[in-house]
């Protein structure tokens, strides 16, 4: 049965953020994959299909925007959400280049997180 659940890939270098995100999405009926870096996320994406990516922006090594741009360059159509404490600081052009579906603020509001993810998956 688990094969039928939408797969959400969470990317954040902060493991407690990953844990809090999973906690919040616990009842949303997703299969959740958590990884700590853009490199790991790219490896997972190479191994299996996912339905949604939620990535943090500020991470050591590759930042969220660069990681999602790379996903976009690879021709992926997976909807993607960027989680950032400073959403207004990211230029619109970069958001478009990375094919970002939605921006979420950090700290996030649980209800907003859930509804954003839902609409990303259905839209």
């Amino acid at each position: 049965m688990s094969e039928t659940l939408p797969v959400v890939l969470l990317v954040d270098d902060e493991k407690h953020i990953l844990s809090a995100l999973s906690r919040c999405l616990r009842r949303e009926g997703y299969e959740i994959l958590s990884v700590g870096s853009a490199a790991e996320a790219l490896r997972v994406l190479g191994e299996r299909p996912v339905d949604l990516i939620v990535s943090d922006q500020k991470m050591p090594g590759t930042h969220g925007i660069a990681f999602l741009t790379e996903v976009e360059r690879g021709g992926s159509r997976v909807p993607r959400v960027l989680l950032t404490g400073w959403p207004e600081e990211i230029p619109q052009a970069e958001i478009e280049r990375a094919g970002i579906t939605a921006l979420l603020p950090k700290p996030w509001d649980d209800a907003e997180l859930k509804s954003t993810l839902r609409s990303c998956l259905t839209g």
Partner: protein
Amino acid sequence: MNARLLVVEPFEERPAAASTAEALRLLGPAVALELHHEAPVAAAALRARHSDLVVLDHRLGDDLWSLLCRAREGATPALVIGEAGDEAHALRAFRAGATGYVERGPAFAENLSTAAREQLQWVQRIRGSIPSFVEEKNAGTLDRYSRNIIENMNSALLVINREGAISYANPTAERALGVGDGELEGRDLRDWFPGAEAEEILPLRTVKEGTRFRGVETVLTRADGTLIPTGISCAPLVDAEGVGEGAVAIFQDLVEIKQLQRQVLQTEKMASIGQLAAGVAHEINNPMGFIHANLSQLTEYLDDLQKVWAQVEGLRGAADRDPADAQQVREAARALGATIQAVDAGFLMRDFGTAIRESLEGSERIRAIVTDLRAFSHQDTAERALCDINRALDSTANIVWTMMKHSVVLTKQYEELAPMVGFPMQLKQVFMNLLVNAYQAIEERAAREELRGEIRLRTELQGEEVLITVTDNGVGMPKETLDRIFDPFFTTKEVGVGTGLGLSTSFNLIKNHGGTLRAQSEVGRGTSFEVRLPLGDPDELL
């Protein structure tokens, strides 16, 4: 010698034995004389025609002073003839602009002609040195040029005589010192340096020793008692024979420049603090993010666990009833079991603890950042104080490190140091600049290649100096860049990233401490900044 002389003396029916005109005829036929008896007519002539020299008789009374003034306006040298022994009159004439003074008395004619000849020769010497483009102009015009320049230039000019009194001050000097027209002349220069020792007053040293100064910062006191910072330049004044006659001093009011410097410092401080604040905000935002999310999840957990608790209460009620209805108890137990399963109570109980533990860890991280901030803001004073350099460096490094801990390893090697006299906040500002620069250099290199960023901090005591080194393994700089890093507004960073003032400000702050700031760098290897600070004398603070 071709020259025009204008002679003004009151009309006399029976001229003195040796008249002025006769005496001047001794100069020879090449000297044209124009004689006037009426002051207004003479003044008009002075205005209308060029004269090389004007000779004025003291018997003109008050007209003498107005004619002297005219001559001065037209930059025409003026020789005054006075009564023998009237020193006060002679002095007054000189102050009013006379260039020479001859007393009546024995050998008057000879003295007068000699003085007039000297004055004319002086005029001709000036003419000889006129550059070709003004050669056609006469000496009077040149004199007028220089007078115009002196009176209109934006620098204050003082001429100081051998006795240390001001013999000339231009209008800018009068404005700068807050006195009216002509009020400076004759005043003792020391009046403008109250409380200063003679050797501290640079123009007096120039008068005495002939020393030249260029753009030395010195403080003058205005007439109203306010102090003005100035940059002063002094040169000795010598006569034709090279004998010292005093000094010329030019100074500029530095009040505005000082204000700008302060603003620049403030701008740079704000820029550094902005960078720091952004780093700290990010480090606080992450734990805040999960603490906030966890708290709202825990509220949901609690709601669910309360549902379980309500069933527990129901079961207890059924069991407590007398006589116990086995059917009801079974029913309540079934409902409890169903709720426990529905809310996944087992998971909730386990995860409740995990969420609290993680949140506590997050709040501990925030607490640590606040502790670092508090240590950093310790001694946030603009006053001079005894600084613990290791503590200042360490607290700054800890704060800056919050924003780079993901990509940089910080190694510290602190030697025990004696306390140093300095401005703690300024030193922390310098350390912050150096650390942020090191971090940016590492980031730049890390963007191109796999890199384990490293910043090494080191302090050591070298005699009476503290040596602080901040070394990074970032991109490094070519020599052309290294040569300019301390220049104001020089930056290699993108627009908006730096003010271009970080290192020049740091350089100046260290200089103010009597220390030095140097950098060594190698492209692709990294950069090392070296701060040397004198320990200073702690007794100075008492």
